[in-house]
């Protein structure tokens, strides 16, 4: 029974099973499933000098950018998407890939009122030049403040209505709804770096409950823009290894010095098992567990014992009805910040006990950087592919492990092994934590 607290995380017996029938991504390592997966297994880095803007004097001058990408090759409703921001552009390409992989482009009997979307997408990029120019043009040197009347005059003249509205965090969602004619439940959540893991988890719950047949779930985000880098540089959260940027993302390594900004999108098609079976959809894996928690500690720091991370992992395992020993692979949050990696390691030890030393853990952020709100979505896809191919992507740049990070992080080389059940962690700034458990379809 769901009402007693002891087994409160178990889904109700009547709940629908939820399966993954399509995946797609747009990442710094490429824009299709197989290319990116091959490069992840090869341990390639998608990091390079930042080209999006002139970062040449910033504390951090590099990032993992999406290259040579044009969303227009993916969409069927181009007029509805003209002038979209990067988050939406990434979301459209990733979702179109997933939609086609799931065979939904050739399925005519879909009930669009039972088709929903749950994204974890970030804020759009500011219209930087016009924003900065408006601010400076209205700066009153003596009063040390912006003259609001002058600001209004300049900004109204310089700024563009469409460019502004496209920064709203629900815009990737809104454009996917137009592209795929969605009338069912639609959400965007923004729990910082945990957002798209949470989106997949909540989409799973919507399907379990029977409030939709099919959900598009995932996330899209870039913070590779001047104020994004500024914000993270001021927090001293980013690596500043400008002289060797290709190897700057070093999760679990003793010489890690912060995360590397990535960008992109990951999208999954989730559906109820019976809906997938009815239309003979390809079933890639099953989402069997989801946990969500808050540190409730400090906005600036993770709880030193990883209290929230422990709670999210335990909830997800309990929700899946699995024991720690059932997990074959952990896709770590593994950002490469000093604080995250040691505390995540501690949390894994708390949850997994002795078995923590035997379960392989890796962070693909070592290769594609940190996609912030979208990070969890590409990591969930990685779990699906690990199950499909029985291969684990490595944590690259891990030559000198931190004594506080003494688990098996699949250093530098991909690994072939039995992979039936994966656990994926995402922890957000401010203490919102989410964990998924993804299993081979039995």
């Amino acid at each position, binding site marked *: 029974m*769901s*009402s007693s607290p002891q087994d*409160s*995380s178990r889904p*109700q017996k*009547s709940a629908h099973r939820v399966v993954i029938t399509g995946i797609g991504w747009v990442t710094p390592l490429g824009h299709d499933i197989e290319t990116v997966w091959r490069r992840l297994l090869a341990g390639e880095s998608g990091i390079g000098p930042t080209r999006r803007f*002139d*970062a*040449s*004097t*910033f504390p951090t001058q590099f990032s993992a950018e999406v290259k040579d990408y044009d969303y227009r090759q993916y969409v069927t409703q181009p*007029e*509805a998407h003209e002038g979209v921001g990067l988050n939406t552009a990434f979301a459209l390409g990733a979702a179109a890939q997933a939609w086609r992989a799931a065979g939904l482009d050739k399925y005519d009997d879909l009930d669009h009122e039972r088709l*929903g*979307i749950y994204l974890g997408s970030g*804020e759009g990029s500011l219209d930087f030049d016009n*924003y*900065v120019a408006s*601010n*400076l043009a209205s700066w009153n040197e003596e009063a040390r403040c*912006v003259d*609001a*009347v*002058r*600001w*209004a005059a300049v900004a109204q003249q310089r700024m563009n*209505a469409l460019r502004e*509205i496209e920064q*709203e965090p*629900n815009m990737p*969602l*809104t454009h996917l*709804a*137009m592209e795929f004619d969605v*009338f*069912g439940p*639609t*959400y*965007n959540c*923004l*729990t910082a770096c945990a957002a798209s893991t949470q989106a997949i988890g909540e989409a799973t719950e919507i399907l379990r409950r*029977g409030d939709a047949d099919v959900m598009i779930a995932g996330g899209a985000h870039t913070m590779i823009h*001047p104020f994004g880098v*500024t*914000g*993270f540089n*001021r*927090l001293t959260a980013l690596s500043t290894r400008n002289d060797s940027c290709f190897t700057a993302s070093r999760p679990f390594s003793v010489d890690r010095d912060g995360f590397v900004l990535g960008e992109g999108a990951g999208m999954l098609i989730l559906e109820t098992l*019976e809906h997938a079976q*009815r239309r003979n959809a390809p079933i890639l894996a099953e989402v069997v567990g989801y946990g*969500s*928690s*808050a*540190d*409730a500690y400090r*906005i600036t720091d993770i709880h030193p014992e990883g*209290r929230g991370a422990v*709670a999210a992992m335990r909830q997800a395992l309990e929700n899946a009805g699995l024991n720690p020993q059932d997990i074959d692979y952990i896709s770590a949050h593994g950002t490469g910040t000093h604080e995250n990696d040691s505390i995540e390691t501690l949390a894994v030890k708390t949850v997994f006990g002795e078995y923590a030393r035997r379960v392989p853990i890796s962070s693909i952020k070592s290769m594609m950087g940190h996609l912030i709100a979208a990070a969890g979505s590409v990591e969930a896809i990685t779990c699906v592919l690990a199950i499909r191919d029985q291969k684990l992507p490595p944590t690259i740049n891990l030559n000198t492990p931190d004594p506080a990070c003494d688990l098996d992080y699949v250093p530098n080389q991909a690994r072939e092994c039995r992979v039936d059940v994966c656990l994926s962690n995402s922890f957000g*700034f401010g*203490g919102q934590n989410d964990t998924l458990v993804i299993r081979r379809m039995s």
Partner: protein
Amino acid sequence: MVKAAIKQPMPQLFKMPAMTRRVVITGLGPVSAVGLGIEPTWEAAVAGRSGIGPITAFDASGFDCRIAGEVRDLSVKDFVPKNYRKATKVMARDIELAVVAADFAARDAALVTRGTNPDEAPSYAPHRVGAHIGAGLIAGELNELTTALAEARAEDGSFDIHRWGESGMEHLTPLWLLKYLPNMLACHVTIIHDCQGPSNTITCAEASAGLSIGESLRVIQRGAADACFCGGAESKLNPMAFLRQLMTGRYNTTSNDDGSRAVRPFCQNAAGSIVGEGGGIVVLEALETFRQRYAAASGDVKPRAYAEIAGFGASQTVNREARNLRPDPEGRGIAVAIRAALREANVAPGDIDLIIAFGLGLRETDAAEAEALKRVFGETLSGVPVVSTKALVGNCGAGAGGLDVCLAARAIAEQMIPATINCESPLPGINAGSAPARSAKINTVLTYSAGIGGQNAALVLKKIEV
């Protein structure tokens, strides 16, 4: 039977079994231009007193619209524990509003938390309390940012990104980014009240608070928490956010001299909405755990259950020609959400005693809502009173639905329909004309919100005897 239902090839016939936990609303924390907390808010709603007036937050004389629904005299320090006052320095106005709303909600619910009473044992174990709080895109404070930008100017006064990278950015406080992340509303609330359960931040424009309340409902129903803070808050009363709003073309620029008459929901003479700030956060609890808390409470601090959240529905509007920035004139998407909420609540349209509508006071969106309501209610619509809070507080964005749920709950508790103002000639078929507050039998209330971008949330509240 349950097993057979799973195999049913038509999931829309799938009925949730009776084991779903019931959820009640036990604390109300509205924050808006008409006041802080439920008492002044309800009083204004009954009196039909608008809080819309000239903008004082910044000099708005450069904009075509110069009035708003402003929250006045807000001092967030009065609403946080002493040891948390320092943290208020990193709170954007949106965060302050959420923190204040959550404090009101917790106290209204007589809930013991680390925030309301750190010396007593909390009403719920921290890991059984969640928080789902809707938020908007938070605009950076112009003075703070430009003070730093001014240090990175080239000789000709223009911005020099090299100087910015070298040293200009150092004029920003290290925690600058954290002031403006939308999830910080929920994060501060979870830290203050020690909510370690499931937590989320939903960012779907005006549908955010309604969707967040719906998500808390689901989390409690499925047993992942026993109590949740939920709702939303937003402030667009700074030049950048305000400009973004005006650029949507949805606001009244012709009533600057008469704020209280500016917003006319469902009126044929509606001239657009007005930007408001605030919203509402409520406390939801599982009925069974609330009953335990109720039984254990001493007589003078008995908590109350205002209403049951009996149904919830979410949906999406599609209007491709207008990029989902304008409504579907036929109201199909909104109707999908309302029908889902009614279905879960197991009520027929004829059972609804009051509708707290979204009702922006913009002819195009009001007309689309009217079409959606007609789709669901048919002929019976003209008999149901329709009230919008926008005439009183403006459009509170991500917080709007939270405020509306507070009023819906209080309307049930008081058995009273709030006043309707500014609607001399309602759209045909809609019972939304100006009327004073009046007593009525109110068992069931529908409230919904429809955000720009097309997300919709609908909730059905039912009277409950605990």
